């Protein structure tokens, strides 16, 4: 049922994207109301997204959030590029959570890319989009390639167009004789010039062109430059205010304990022990949680720890991680796939008498996002109005969800979006229990209340990357090439639309078997491409070795000659020194994964010490994302993705026991530290004329399989189950 509903919603989005929600100029009251909230005295608004003040300061409003990926700076670069703005006068702010600031560009972007209902739309993302319209979603590595390319550049160019028109009128000179640079319109012939700030108010009265001409890349002076991020100064002096930093007069602080088994309910709790703790003011019982409200966090936590609530297990007491893998195996072996894709008849090749058959089974556990800032949300209810302070990946949807939980109209809910201490997919409002918890709590309290999740609650109640398993089977023909490839995978979501299979194989089959648990599987940075990349890129390495071929040459032979993929692979081999002999004990492993429109190849150099512990010495990455807006940011995103992927592959695992999550903090959910980070992570971008791809996520998928392949090269031991940590002994050479 769930799947069918998703398909329906997907169709609805494609239609909407093509027609109704295209990026048009101020086409309604919503945008006018939106601008009224941001345009102050001496400021002129050119669409809700850009305003120019009389002192020449240019402010860009971003409909997407920046939770560390640097997108706000890059979006400002793109608008400022087309505007010919003075970069030192450019500011960027998060757009208010109002429908007039909704992110229509993401919808148009996905629709454009797909040409309607194509095969490359991340379905899981679009269903989120559909459910939450109007929304301000950040996801799918879409900020720059869609919001930037579609909305920001067009906005900047349109504003420049009317500034030129206005200047032409005031200078009594044709537009063709005017030039723009650094917030100034110049008429060289007469030697006169006008500042944007002095003509902005009049220019903003003119009607904006719907299809302004955009610059050719040769004319760029900001796009492609390593511009310093605008948000960094506030992040080195402690002044940046995150959701958890909110302070309001009379505010109380609360913390929560949820049912240890997801879907369990609070059966009973004696509130007295908490109320006896100094500073505790209130205990609130919700359906599946108990909350203690106090003067400060420590008092609330002490109050909570004094309680002995009873929770039900919702019938999940038999659920544990090994049993999930067993059930997944049984489901797959029963053979009734939920979804099938591919081409040709794999069975013909599997049954061919001269075929070399290779089979392998892979498993990956639940993985937690582990954003550094635990959830924190502040809400205040007064006279039927609810005010909220929080950082989420879609502020408009926060408003909607909070309104529903509080029994109010969205118009009576005001959301103040704040910056976030990470997210990585954890902050999609639809998976954020804290929104409803906090909104309901506020309705019962006379004060503003900041609800903070402890790290333990954060770890135990995540929206994890799914626990998933796969069986892969291939036939290698007499010519040494792959004749047939089948991937059978078991997890909740169908990955077909977001994980392209790029190797040329005569017969392919991808079968998805739907398996659900009581967990709310969530999108984790690069979503299904993490596990699908691990399956496919580990298995092709196995096939190369089975065929007695070099893993690079083997991959290359199965990629179209002259393709972007082959170009990335060749550059990767060259830059990583693939053909050279690695240091003694060190193995090299390779992987190539396309996700979110970007192709990333990586080579990992790793060894395993005498105690069986793996060490990563070097990572080389080659990236084709079309073009790069900010190379400094781009490098940071790929490096960060690699480190996160290595961390996940080496040691991260959420397990269920009796229906509840076992892990609770960084002690038993270890995150890679600086000392374990390879000294060299070399990232190289290949410029291509392809459509711009994403960068926040595509760095993640290749590192895990490249590491596993490197360990095989170093030790001869094949890693087929993550994390690697638990197999350390088995790796002893």
């Amino acid at each position, binding site marked *: 049922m769930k799947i069918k509903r998703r398909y329906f919603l997907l169709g609805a989005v494609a239609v909407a994207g093509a027609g109704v929600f295209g990026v048009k100029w101020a086409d309604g009251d919503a945008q006018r109301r939106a601008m009224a909230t941001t345009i102050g005295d001496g400021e002129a608004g050119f669409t809700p997204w850009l305003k120019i003040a009389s002192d020449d300061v240019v402010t860009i409003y971003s409909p997407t959030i920046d*939770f*560390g990926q*640097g997108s706000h700076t890059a979006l400002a670069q793109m608008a400022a590029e087309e505007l010919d703005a003075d970069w030192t006068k450019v500011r960027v702010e998060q757009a208010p959570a109002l429908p007039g600031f909704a992110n229509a560009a993401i919808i148009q972007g996905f629709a454009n890319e797909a040409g309607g209902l194509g095969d490359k739309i991340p379905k899981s993302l679009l269903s989120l989009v559909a459910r939450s319209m109007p929304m301000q979603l950040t996801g799918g590595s879409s900020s720059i390639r869609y919001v930037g390319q579609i909305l920001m550049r067009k906005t900047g160019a349109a504003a420049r167009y009317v500034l030129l028109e206005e200047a032409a009128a005031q200078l009594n000179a044709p537009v063709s004789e005017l030039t723009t640079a650094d917030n100034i319109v110049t008429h060289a012939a007469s030697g006169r010039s006008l500042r944007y700030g002095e003509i902005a108010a009049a220019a903003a009265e003119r009607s904006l062109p719907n299809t302004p001409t955009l610059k050719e890349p040769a004319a760029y002076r900001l796009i492609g430059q390593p511009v*310093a*991020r605008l*948000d*960094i*100064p506030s*992040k*080195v*002096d*402690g*002044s*940046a*205010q*995150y959701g*958890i*930093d909110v*302070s309001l007069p009379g505010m109380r*602080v609360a913390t929560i304990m949820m049912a240890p088994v997801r879907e369990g309910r609070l059966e009973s709790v004696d509130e007295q022990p908490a109320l006896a703790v*100094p*500073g505790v003011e209130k205990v609130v019982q919700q359906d599946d949680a108990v909350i203690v409200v106090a003067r*400060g*966090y*420590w*008092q609330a*936590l002490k109050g909570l720890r004094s309680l002995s609530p009873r929770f039900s297990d919702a019938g999940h007491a038999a659920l544990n991680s090994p049993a999930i893998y067993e059930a997944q195996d049984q489901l797959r072996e029963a053979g009734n796939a939920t979804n099938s894709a591919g081409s040709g008849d794999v069975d013909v090749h599997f049954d061919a008498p001269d075929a070399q058959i290779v089979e392998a089974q892979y498993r990956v556990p639940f993985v937690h996002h*582990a*954003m*550094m*800032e*635990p959830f924190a949300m502040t809400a205040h209810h007064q006279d039927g109005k609810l005010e909220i302070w929080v950082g989420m990946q879609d502020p408009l949807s926060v408003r909607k969800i909070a309104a529903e939980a509080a029994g109010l109209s969205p118009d009576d809910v005001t959301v103040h979006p704040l*910056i*976030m*201490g*990470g*997210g*990585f997919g954890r902050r999609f409002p639809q998976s954020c229990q804290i929104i409803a918890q906090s909104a309901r709590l506020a309705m019962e309290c006379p004060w503003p209340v900041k609800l*903070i999740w*402890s*790290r333990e609650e954060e770890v135990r109640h995540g929206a994890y990357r799914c626990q998933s398993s796969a069986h892969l089977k291939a036939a290698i023909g007499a010519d040494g090439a792959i004749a047939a490839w089948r991937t059978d995978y078991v997890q909740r979501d169908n990955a077909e639309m977001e994980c392209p299979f790029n190797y040329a194989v005569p017969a392919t089959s991808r079968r998805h078997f739907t398996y659900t648990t009581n967990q709310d599987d969530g999108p984790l940075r690069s979503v299904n491409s993490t596990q699908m990349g691990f399956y496919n890129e580990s298995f092709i390495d196995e096939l190369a070795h089975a065929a007695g071929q070099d893993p690079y040459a083997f991959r290359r032979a199965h990629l179209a000659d002259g393709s972007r993929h082959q170009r990335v692979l060749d550059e990767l081999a060259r830059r990583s020194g693939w053909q050279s002999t690695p240091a003694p004990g060190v193995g090299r492993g390779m992987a190539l994964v396309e996700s979110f429109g970007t192709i990333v190849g990586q080579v990992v150099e790793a060894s395993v010490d005498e105690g069986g512990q793996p060490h990563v010495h070097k990572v080389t990455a080659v990236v084709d994302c079309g073009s790069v807006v900010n190379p*400094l940011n781009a490098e*940071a995103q790929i*490096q*960060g993705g*690699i*480190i*996160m992927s290595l*961390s996940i592959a080496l040691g991260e695992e959420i397990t269920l026991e009796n229906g509840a999550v076992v892990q609770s*903090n*960084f*002690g038993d959910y270890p*995150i*890679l*530290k*600086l*000392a374990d*980070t390879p*000294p*060299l992570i070399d990232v190289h971008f290949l410029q291509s004329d392809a459509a711009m791809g994403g960068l926040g996520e595509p760095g993640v998928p290749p590192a895990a399989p490249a590491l596993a392949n490197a360990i095989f090269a170093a030790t001869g031991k094949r890693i087929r189950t993550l994390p690697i940590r638990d197999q350390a002994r088995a790796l002893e050479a």
Partner: protein
Amino acid sequence: MPVAATVNGQAVAFESETDTPLLWALREELGLTGAKFGCGVSACGACTIHVDGRTVRSCVFPVSQAAGKTITTIEGLKSNEGELHPVQQAWIEAQVPQCGYCQSGQIMAAVDLIARLGKPTPAQIDEAMTNICRCGTYPRIRAAILRATDQAAE
């Protein structure tokens, strides 16, 4: 009984109960929110501050132990003239932060490391910098520490 201490050069008297972790007293009593709550068990280092010049993970350091101590938070690193500390400056030049949440603690840890060792070697950096960064800014943290100590990157 208030606990007297010096925070960023100012005399203060903490009124929080004495078992309150200093992190919460700094954040909720003094409004110094630069030190962050990450784990509550001294595992991640987001709450790192200096007590008498040395790093302390303030989420497990009770207010009672702060009596008479000199405490510095990220807000107190700037000079009296408002100039950034050289380590903060290096953090900007190396463009370290992504989400930024762990960076106050990372910077405080790096300032202490450099104060103790002058020009730390890569191995000393690895040993001392144990704060967690989920965004994976570690390569640039290394680069910033080398830059702050006038050492060439590897």
